[in-house]
């Protein structure tokens, strides 16, 4: 039998381009997407845009093709990755898997990928402590990105309600692991950033395996956290390795409950602190007042003392003046035997020169008066 005979028996015949088209249609119908886990090899990025690589195991190797936007972050040869891809035959470059998503799997590989991304983003300054902003404490309105079915969500809300009240919480229900997680989280961050009416965006989930938490170290998520105009708090329930989103956030918490503890003060603690502060203030004020009272009392005494001194001096001066005046009164002299001589016209006579023989004069003593006539004048009395 010849090849012509085969055609005759209904085997379809194509030219090459037609065969490629039919094969692609068949693949698209039978296997539109496929998930493959294998080792990354020959990984390279061309023109800072196109990604070429192989995925292989011990027995086979397949070609991968994609763009850098499909990457979770830096990858390198030897990593075990999970690829979701669309199989396709290219008219020129043969069969390849067009990458839809790719992510490292296995704890070691995830960590390695995170380390590479961390080094890259660190160099760009995304984790710089100087970028951290203060979050209002307590915030009045928060945007919460979490899975509402999760224990993490319940824990956060429970602790928040226990500690504080009156908080306006808006929730963006998001997948926080798996294929949809990256998109959900990025959309959630964009949503709250466009609204700009929340004080802080909290991104949280509970603990899990390295695979479960891998989305928190995906480049786009980390960049979105870093670029957020609204301050961010990222709380992932684990203690060993810190995710890159936590490093890029303004605040990091170790668990969802811890995030609520950090963001909201405890009402009872606050009341106790206010009581203590009031007690301290009362004491300070009382001591200050007592000090002021003592100071004023001293000032009062000092002032009174000074005024009393002035008064005493004035009193002494007045008494002295009084003595002088009393001494100057004619009666004081008369009591000692002196007399007051007056001429007939009543003028005081203090000199012999004012008198002549036969002048009538009066002489006033302490207890009476006498009328006299001058009989003799002696001007030379010493």
């Amino acid at each position, binding site marked *: 039998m010849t090849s012509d005979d085969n055609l005759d028996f209904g085997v379809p015949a194509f030219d090459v381009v037609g065969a490629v088209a039919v094969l692609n249609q068949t693949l698209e119908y039978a296997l539109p997407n496929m998930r493959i886990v294998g080792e990354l090899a020959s990984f390279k990025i061309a023109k800072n845009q196109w990604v070429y690589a192989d995925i292989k195991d011990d027995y086979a190797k397949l070609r991968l093709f994609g763009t850098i936007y499909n990457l979770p972050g830096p990858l390198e040869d030897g990593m075990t990755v999970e690829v979701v891809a669309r199989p396709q035959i290219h008219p020129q470059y043969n069969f390849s898997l067009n990458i839809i998503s790719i992510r490292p799997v296995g704890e070691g590989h995830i960590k390695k990928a995170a380390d590479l991304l961390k080094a890259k983003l660190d160099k760009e300054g995304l984790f710089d402590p100087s970028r951290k902003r203060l979050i209002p404490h307590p915030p009045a309105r928060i945007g919460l990105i979490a899975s509402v079915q999760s224990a993490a969500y319940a824990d956060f809300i429970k602790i928040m309600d226990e500690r504080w009240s009156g908080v306006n919480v808006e929730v963006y229900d998001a997948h926080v692991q798996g294929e949809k997680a990256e998109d959900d989280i990025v959309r959630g961050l964009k949503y709250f950033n466009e609204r700009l009416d929340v004080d802080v965006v909290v991104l949280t989930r509970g603990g899990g395996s390295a695979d479960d938490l891998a989305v928190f170290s995906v480049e786009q998520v980390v960049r979105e956290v870093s670029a957020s105009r609204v301050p961010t708090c990222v709380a992932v329930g684990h203690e060993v390795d810190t995710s890159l989103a936590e490093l890029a956030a303004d605040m990091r918490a170790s668990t969802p409950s811890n995030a609520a503890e950090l963001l909201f003060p405890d009402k009872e603690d606050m009341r106790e602190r206010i009581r203590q502060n009031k007690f301290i203030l009362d004491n300070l004020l009382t001591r200050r007042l007592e000090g002021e009272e003592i100071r004023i009392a001293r000032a*009062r*005494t000092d*002032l*009174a003392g000074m*005024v*009393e001194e002035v*008064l005493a001096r*004035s*009193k002494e*001066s*007045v008494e002295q*003046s*009084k003595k*002088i*005046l009393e001494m*100057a*009164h*004619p009666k004081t002299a008369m009591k000692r035997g002196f007399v*007051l001589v*007056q001429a007939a016209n*009543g*003028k*005081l006579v203090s000199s012999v020169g004012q008198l002549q023989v036969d002048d009538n004069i009066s002489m006033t003593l302490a207890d009476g008066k006498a009328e006299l006539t001058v009989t003799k004048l002696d001007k030379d009395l010493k």
Partner: protein
Amino acid sequence: MSTTKGSAGQKTFRQLEHELDEILVRVEGASYEDLDDLLKDHSDGMTIINQLEDKLKKAKNSIIKAKK
């Protein structure tokens, strides 16, 4: 002599002291021709002294009150 008066319309302590000084200078000078002038100065001087003593007494009482 200053004509400034105290707040109650009376002469101040300083004004009274000044007037008393003037009287004392005259009395100590003993240059009176008329006995009545001497007696008037004496009487005025004693009046001023009474006023001064009254002011001092009031001031003292104020201080005692303020100290309490």
